[in-house]
């Protein structure tokens, strides 16, 4: 549910980075945090385990500046990927305006990707959100790994992207594709606002 | 501590004529610990306000160098609030009619404070 303040002309949207454990969701946020100038980002909050796995969520507010005369702010969240954190994932997903699904491109992780995507659908269903109307983009991360280990983006599209949403190959650790992904989801989320179908 | 001593402490106070309610209040957070109130007295409000007034009064007394309060009495035209801070951080509170025997209520409050420690 995006929050629109017509008096001060401000928009706040919630974007959730979803995906299986260790697929690189937090890495996306870290990269964004590192690249965005201080004045344009808030504090990054990470609720993580001692081994740095996300326990509850990571949170990063960024300021996109003026769009259509509205000062536009995005709040980026990640969910914990491990299967057993499902209750937490559902909580973080509440009220989201868009989802970035971060898939792990390694061939041996395909089942985990599919499972996580199904889990996303069932959580959205439980929250009463229709995945067909919710802005979603896919990111195929770790494309930098040796070719023999990873699936190519076209193959991943075949396996995961049955709705034909925008998808982006990425190497989040070094920043490749992070920006394009964020741009992709931003466009979808804001398009929804411009189309007048905001929740 | 079980509820029995609390009950005993409150009974000491409510048996005095003109007392409309007795309470034990946690001084630090202004919350009800135990209560014995007549209809119409709002326990949470008494607890919160007695706690707050007690804290503010305590600070003024400290500034004046006259030590901790052992008993205080807020007199109003339609009623009164009488309080004894017990050693354990609990306030023993009585809500009374305006013309209650203050000396007697004070004694019972001190007695109740002894019971709750």
């Amino acid at each position, binding site marked *: 549910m995006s929050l629109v*303040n017509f008096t001060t002309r401000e928009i706040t949207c*919630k974007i959730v980075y979803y995906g299986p454990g260790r697929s690189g969701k937090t890495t996306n946020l870290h990269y964004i945090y590192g690249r965005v100038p201080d004045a344009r980002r808030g504090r990054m909050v990470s609720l993580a385990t001692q081994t740095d796995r996300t326990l509850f969520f990571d*949170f990063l507010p*960024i300021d*996109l500046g003026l769009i259509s005369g509205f000062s536009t702010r995005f709040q980026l969240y990640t969910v914990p990927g491990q299967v057993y954190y499902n209750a937490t994932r559902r909580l973080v997903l509440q*009220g989201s305006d868009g989802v970035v699904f971060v898939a792990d491109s390694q061939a041996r992780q395909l089942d985990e990707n599919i499972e996580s995507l199904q889990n996303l659908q069932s959580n959205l269903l439980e929250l009463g959100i229709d995945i067909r109307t919710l802005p979603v983009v896919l990111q195929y991360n770790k494309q930098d790994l040796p070719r023999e280990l990873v699936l190519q983006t076209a193959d991943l599209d075949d396996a995961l992207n049955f709705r034909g949403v925008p998808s982006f190959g990425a190497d989040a650790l070094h920043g490749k594709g992070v920006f394009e992904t964020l*741009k992709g989801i931003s466009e979808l989320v804001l398009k929804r606002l411009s189309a007048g179908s905001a929740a | 501590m079980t509820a029995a001593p609390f009950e005993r402490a409150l009974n000491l106070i409510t048996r005095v004529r003109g007392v409309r309610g007795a309470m034990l209040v946690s001084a*630090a957070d202004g919350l009800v610990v135990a209560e014995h109130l007549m209809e119409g007295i709002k326990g949470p409000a008494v607890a*919160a306000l007695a706690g707050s007034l007690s*804290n503010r009064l305590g600070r003024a007394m400290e500034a004046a160098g006259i030590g901790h309060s052992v008993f205080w009495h807020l007199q109003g035209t339609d009623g009164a609030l009488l309080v004894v801070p017990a050693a354990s951080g609990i306030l023993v509170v009585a809500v009374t009619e305006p013309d209650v025997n203050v000396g007697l209520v004070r004694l019972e409050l001190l007695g109740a404070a002894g019971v709750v420690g």
Partner: protein
Amino acid sequence: MSTRAVESWTLDPLKRFVGEAGARLVLLMTPAGQVMAQHGFSRAVDVMSAAALGAAIMASTAEIARQLNQPPFAALTHQGDRHGIFLGAVSTGRGTIVALVVYDLDASSAGLVQLFFEQLAAELKAASPKEGVPKQVLAADFERELSDSLNTLFGR
């Protein structure tokens, strides 16, 4: 003291509450953690992360209640040596709103905050407009602006 509000109808009740309860700061937010209004000493905390974390606490305990087959908890208090926070939910014409109150034990207490929170909840409920917000927000040609903004943001 500073004040900000996305929905101005929340302000009078908020100001009254901060005065009466002696709170340091009160934030109103959506259950998803987006700040709707704030009043008080906003430097007490990082407002945006506090809202995200407060909403997360509320959501977690609501989930625990759900798993116990109980109705959601009405309010939560966490108290330290010098400060406390209080979280409570209010149901209004604009849906559920979560309030996060930060208070100093010098000036307030859990009891005072709870006492006046009831009043705040009633006032917010009464003041909330029932009509929905207009849907159309952005102009259709926002894409170039978005692209420029993101380019600047990433130093491209």
